[in-house]
């Protein structure tokens, strides 16, 4: 059985297979739409570059934050969260985005680095899911789109709820190596031959060298995480160019279906959480308020690019939990809102 699992989940080969599938999808799409090929190809390139150029600064912010955490934060800094009640540490994780304002591209490398510094697993999971919404930038942009009222309160409140609950599920896990790929080891081309600096050794470096370290760590992480951002952007651009959106919009009536459609749109569009509120606005006329809320809740937690990044950092079972638990919770919340309480 183990062997079958090994064959099924060979990471390197899966990467190749997904690349090949992506190529196949692209070829099929091109063949299917060969009449308008030229126009579509340039649109595909434009959309891909658009997503990439838009997301890159946010990924850079995340990797720089991760470098700063690595160099300036002491390993024992999260001891205060350990041994506290599981509820408290998950809730604390959900609110950490207020201190580290990152969106969904930047949060993945940052969370891995924080685990290395001893952050409890449940807090990290809650942080991973909540940070893209519960941070000053996103709260401000949601408020400027919807006005400071119900929608903002429900977005922040339900994100807090979903993230904390999902974090709680991970409470029983004590050792990060149980959920992280490679036991949580971070690829880094500089640490390996600087053993004398070791874990706590950055303290003694001169300031200029510390800055250099931060930049090098950030650059390595950009290359490591950027892969998944780029593949996610390629996939999202391909889907946008070759699958009619009206197809989804036509499906979208009814209290359950409309929620499902908005969630699929959130996954497909892969929009950064700092701006998705403005996009969501344009759906208000077509869909019920609660399904727009589903878009605002689930999109920041899970979309194509973040799933790709998750699979690089976490083992497959935690990734499945990370994708499915919030999905079920968000559907439960918004469908019942659709039925019992019209906004």
């Amino acid at each position, binding site marked *: 059985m183990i062997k079958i699992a090994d064959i099924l989940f060979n990471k390197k080969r899966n990467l190749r297979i997904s690349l090949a599938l992506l190529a196949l999808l692209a070829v099929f799409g091109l063949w299917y739409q060969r009449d308008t090929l030229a126009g579509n190809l340039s649109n595909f390139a434009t959309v891909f570059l658009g997503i990439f150029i838009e997301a890159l600064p946010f990924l850079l912010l995340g990797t720089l934050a991760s470098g700063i955490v690595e160099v300036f934060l002491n390993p024992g800094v999260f001891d205060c969260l350990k041994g506290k009640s599981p509820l408290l540490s998950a809730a604390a994780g959900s609110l950490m985005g207020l201190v580290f304002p990152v969106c969904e591209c930047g949060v993945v490398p940052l969370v891995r680095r924080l685990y290395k510094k001893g952050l409890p697993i449940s807090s990290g999971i809650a942080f991973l899911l909540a940070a893209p919404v519960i941070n000053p930038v996103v709260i401000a942009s949601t408020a400027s789109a919807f006005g400071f009222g119900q929608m903002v309160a429900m977005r922040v409140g339900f994100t807090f709820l979903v993230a904390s609950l999902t974090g709680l599920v991970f409470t029983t896990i004590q050792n990060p190596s149980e959920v992280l790929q490679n036991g949580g080891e971070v690829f880094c081309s*500089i640490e390996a031959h600087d053993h004398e600096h070791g874990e706590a050794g950055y303290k003694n470096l001169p300031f200029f060298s510390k800055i250099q370290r931060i930049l090098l760590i950030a650059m390595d992480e950009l290359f490591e995480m950027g892969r998944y951002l780029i593949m996610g952007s390629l996939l999202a651009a391909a889907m946008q160019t070759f699958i009619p959106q009206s197809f989804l919009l036509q499906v979208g009536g009814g209290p359950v279906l409309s929620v499902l459609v908005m969630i699929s749109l959130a996954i497909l569009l892969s929009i950064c959480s700092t701006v998705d509120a403005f996009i969501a606005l344009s759906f208000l006329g077509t869909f019920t308020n609660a399904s727009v809320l589903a878009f605002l809740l689930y999109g920041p937690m899970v979309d194509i690019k973040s799933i790709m990044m998750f699979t690089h950092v976490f083992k497959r079972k935690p990734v499945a939990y990370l994708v499915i638990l919030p999905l079920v919770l968000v559907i439960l919340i918004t469908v019942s809102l659709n039925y019992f309480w019209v906004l």
Partner: protein
Amino acid sequence: MDKTAKRQYLQFLITLGLAVYLADKWASGKLSYYINARFFPLTLFAVCALSLMAAAGWQQLAGKAAEKQVEHAPDKNILIFQAFGLTGTPVLLTLFLPKTMLILGVYVLTALLGWLLLLRYFHNLPGRPAAEALPRSALFILSLPLIIGLAAPEQPLSSASLDTRGISLNAPMSISQQSTDSLAVQQDDRTILDWVKLFNYESDPSTHIGEDVNVIGFVYHDPRLPQGEFMVSRFIITCCVADAFAIGMPVDWPQDTNFEDNTWINVQGTLDVTQIGSQTVPMVHAASIQPVSAPEQPYLYP
């Protein structure tokens, strides 16, 4: 040169390349083909961060080379000078001289110069274990945006994408002040977006019938429209082209000159009202239509 060093050199080149690419897009104004102007400062931040990373990467490479050959070791200031010279020059040039070929030339020159400098210090550096080298797939995938960016024509989204995106009759709704302000835009300055908004927000838009319309947009032959009419449309983007959607006004053009889809035109005429499906939308009785070149900012921002 050993494998790790080679890959670090490639990593340095790609990082620098991305910085130069983004700086060039910004300097030439083509950035507005891809993202909302609101986010330009973020792209500039990315340019700075990437060039600093490239500088740090270069310094790491050259510094390591120097450590191994103490007798030739340049002093630290020279290394820092090299690092910022090699990375800063192309980026600065890009900001001041937005000419793609020239920038490409400078970039290639920088790459060659860096390579020679490395060979000078690096030729017999002992190899380190391959496990530490950056994965090859990372180098390949990170260079994809550069390859696609250079190979694909620099074009704003075209009407070809309307086949999958469709055209919307509703303006994006917003409760924010900024957006309702545009109802107060002077009649002559109203864009397609302003007209569509007007019809979405006002209770009785028919009071505007007969007002002068002067808008720029591209041609799209909407299958819902009768013969002799077409849409003059614009894409609206909030964040980047991934969220683009098109809005449009039907144009009644009795001369029926055959404009091809995606031609940019300036339509002047008077406003009228028509029905598409169950919805009341603004339309233009065109008095004159002039083909124009695409505006510098091809999209409208809500």
